[in-house]
C-alpha cells in the first residue's frame, strides 16, 4: 500500500512516516501544503492520502478542499483528513464533497496504537471512516423522546459503528456477532429511525450523521 502525507509540521510528518514504515506501508510522498500535495499526488498516485485539515496559507480548512479535489480527480485514491478539533460540520462537508473512501479522524489518533493504521487500511478498502468521538458526541445529545431512545443497547452500539463507517462485516467482527445478526440489527435500527435502507455505505453514514446532528 502506498500513502502520501500532507502536514505543515515537519515533526508530525516524520513521525507519521516512521509509524507507517514500521507497519510496512510505503510512504511514497509528503507535502507541507495543499499545492505541494496536489503535485505529489499527480506524480506518485498513492492509494491513500493522509492530510491535515489545517495547512498554509490560511490555516483553515485547506485539507478538506484538497481532499475534495483529489477525490474528484482520482476517485480511486482514498483520503483521510486529520483534524485537531472534532466537528460534525467538517465531517458532513467531507462526506458530501469527497464521497466514499474518505475519512475524518481526530489528529490525536495518530498517537494511539493502531487507530490510524486501521483507518488507512479501511480507507484503502473503499470504506468510510468517521472518528468514534464524533459519533459518541452526536449520540450523547440525541434529544429526549427521540426514536433513538427506543433502540436497545446493542442496537445503539451497532448504530455508532455504522456512523463510524464500518461495514456490516466490520461491525460483526468488532462485536463478535454473526453478519446475519448484524444485518437484522441494522434493519431494525433503520426502521426505528425511519431512515431508508440504502445499499451504499457512504450514503448510510451520511444519513445517520445527518439524523444525529439534526
Amino acid at each position, binding site marked *: 500500500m502506498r500513502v502520501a502525507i500532507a502536514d505543515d509540521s515537519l*515533526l508530525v510528518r516524520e*513521525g507519521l512516516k516512521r509509524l507507517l514504515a514500521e507497519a510496512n506501508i510505503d510512504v511514497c510522498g509528503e507535502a507541507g501544503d495543499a499545492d505541494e500535495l496536489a503535485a505529489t499526488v499527480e506524480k506518485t498516485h498513492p492509494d491513500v492520502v493522509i492530510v491535515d485539515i489545517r495547512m498554509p496559507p490560511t490555516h483553515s480548512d485547506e485539507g478538506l478542499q484538497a481532499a475534495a479535489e483529489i477525490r474528484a480527480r482520482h476517485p480511486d485514491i482514498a483520503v483521510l483528513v486529520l483534524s*485537531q478539533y472534532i466537528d460534525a460540520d467538517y465531517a458532513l462537508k467531507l462526506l458530501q464533497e469527497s464521497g466514499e473512501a474518505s475519512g475524518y479522524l481526530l489528529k490525536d489518533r495518530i498517537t494511539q496504537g493502531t487507530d490510524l493504521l486501521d483507518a488507512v487500511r479501511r480507507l484503502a478498502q473503499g470504506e468510510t471512516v468517521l472518528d468514534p468521538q464524533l459519533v459518541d458526541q452526536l449520540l450523547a445529545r440525541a434529544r429526549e423522546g427521540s426514536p433513538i431512545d427506543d433502540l436497545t443497547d446493542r442496537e445503539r452500539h451497532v448504530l455508532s459503528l455504522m456512523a463510524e463507517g464500518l461495514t456490516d462485516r466490520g461491525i460483526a467482527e468488532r462485536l463478535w456477532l454473526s453478519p446475519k445478526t448484524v444485518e437484522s440489527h441494522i434493519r431494525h435500527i433503520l426502521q426505528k429511525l425511519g431512515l431508508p435502507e440504502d445499499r451504499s455505505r457512504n450514503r448510510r453514514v451520511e444519513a445517520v450523521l445527518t439524523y444525529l446532528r439534526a
Partner: protein
Amino acid sequence: MSGRVRLLWFALWPVGACFVVFGELGFWLHGTAPRETFPLDLGVSSISIASGLVLWRLRPGNRTAPLLVLAGLLWTVGGIRAYQNPWAFGVGQCFDGSQDLVLAHLLIAYPAGRLIRRPLRALVAAGYSLFLVNVLATLTLPNHGVNAFSVRDAPNVHSALSTVGNVGVVVYAITAIAVVGTRWAGASLGGRRVLGPVFAAALLLAAADAADAIVQALTGSQPDIVFFPPLVARLLIPLAFAFGLVRARLGQVAVGDLVIELDSIGAETMEQALARTLHDPTLRLGFRLAQADDFVDSFGRPVELPGDGDNDRQAATFIERDGEKLAVLVHDRALLEHPRLVESVVAAARLALDNEQLQAQLRSQLVELRASRARLVEAADGERRRLERNLHDGAQQRLLAVGLALNLLRGRIANHAAAPLLEEAEAELAHALQELRELARGIHPAILTDQGLAAAARTLAASGAVPVTVNANGQRFPSAVETAGYYLIAEALTNISRYAQATRAWITITREDGLARIEIGDDGIGGADPGRGTGLAGLVDRIGALDGRLAIDSRPGCGTTIAAEIPCA
C-alpha cells in the same frame, strides 16, 4: 431702582399732581387760548408726567423717563403766567417754552436717554442756553405792574433777545429733527421700530408749529384752529417716547421665547432666531474656530468683525464663557442702545451654544468611545487568534510528535517491563492533548473562522448536555459579529446546562435589515439574573462595542431567551 430714586419716584406723583393742578388752573381761569383746548393742555402735562413716571419704573436705567417728567412739569410752569400775579408771571415767562428744549434734548438723546457723542452734547448744551436767552428777555420785559422780574425797561433789547430766542428755537428744533431723522435713516428695522413713533411725533409737532407760525405771519392773528395741532402733537410726544421704549423692552420678553426656540434648533436657524428676536435682519452669528481668533458661520464662511468706530453701522458683541469667546454676534450698532436686550439674547445664545457644544463634544466622545471599544475588542480577538495559532502550530504538533514516538516505542517494548510506564505516559499525553485542544478552542474556535457562526454554533450545541436545535443557514457575518455571537452562544449554553434545568434549547441565527439576530432560548426554570457573574456582562460590552443590543427575557417558569442584535451592513 435704588432706594433714594424710588423715594423720589413716589414723591414725584403728588408733586406732579400739584404742578398740573396749579398750572392748569391758571390756564383755565385766565388763559388766552380757547377754552376748548383745555383738555388737550391738561393732557399734555399730565400724560407727560404720568407716562414719564411709568416709563421710569419700567426702564429705570433710561434717562428718557426723568426728562419726560421734567418736560411735563415745565409745561405746567408756563401756565402759571395766567395768575395775574407779577411773580407768577415772571416765573412763567422765564420757563415759557423751556419744555420744548427738554423735548429736543429727549429727541436727540433718544433712545438711549444719554448723549454719548460729544457734538450732540454740545448741541444740547447750546439748546439749553436758549433758556438763558428767555430769562434775559424776561428781565428786559417792561414791567407795567405785571412782571415782577423786570429789571430794566429796554424794549429794543427785549425784542432783540426775543428774536434771538425764537430763531434759536426754530434752528434747534430743525437740528434736533435732523439728528433723529439721520439716525432713523441709518437704523436697522429694529432700530426704526423704536425710533419711528418718536420721529413721527416730532415731525408732526414741527409741522404744527410751523403751520402756526405761517398762519400768524400771514394773517397777523391766531385763529382758534391753530391752537389744536401743536397741542395734539405735544400730547403724542410723551406717548411716542414711552411707546417706543416699552416696545424695545418687549423685545426682552421675546428672549424668553428665544430660549425655548434655541433649545431645539441647529446652528443655522439659530442665527435666524437671533435676528428675529433682535429685529435685525443683518445680524450674523459667527462661531469661533478652535484655537483661532477667526469666526465662521454655520456654513463655514468667514464672518467679518466690524471696526470699533462710531461710523461703522455694525457692531460686534461676543458670546463668552469664562472669558473665552465662544461666538460673535455682528449686529446693527443701534442695538448697543439696548444693552439689556442684547445681554439677554447673548445669555440665551450662550445657553444654547453651551448646550450645542456639550452635545457635540459628547457626540464626538461617544463616537470615539465606540470606536475605541471596537478597536479593543478587535485587538483582543486578533490576539486570541494569534495565540490559538501558536498553540496549534507549536505545542500541539510537538505533543503529537511525542505521541507518535511513544506509539512507535510501544511496538518495540511490547513485552518489556517498561510497557506499563509507556502506557501511563501515553494516557497522560492524551490528556494533555485533550486539555490543550479545549484551551485552544476556548481561546479562539478554529471552526468559527473556517466555517462560520452556524457551524460553530452546532459544535457548541453538540458538546452541551441539553439537546439543542440550531436554526441557521450557513451565511457568514463580519468576523467581529461572528466572534461576539459565538461567545454569546457559548455563555448562554453554559448557563443553560448549569442553571436552567432545561430539557431542550434552541439557537436561531438570522439576518434581517442589516442586523444579525442571534437568539438562544431554553424551556428551563427562567429567572436568570443578567447581573450574576461576569459572563453576560462581558458579552454586553462586547456586543455594545459593535453597536449591538442584548435583550434577556427570563421570567421565572418561562424559560430564558437571550437575543442579540448586531448591525452588520
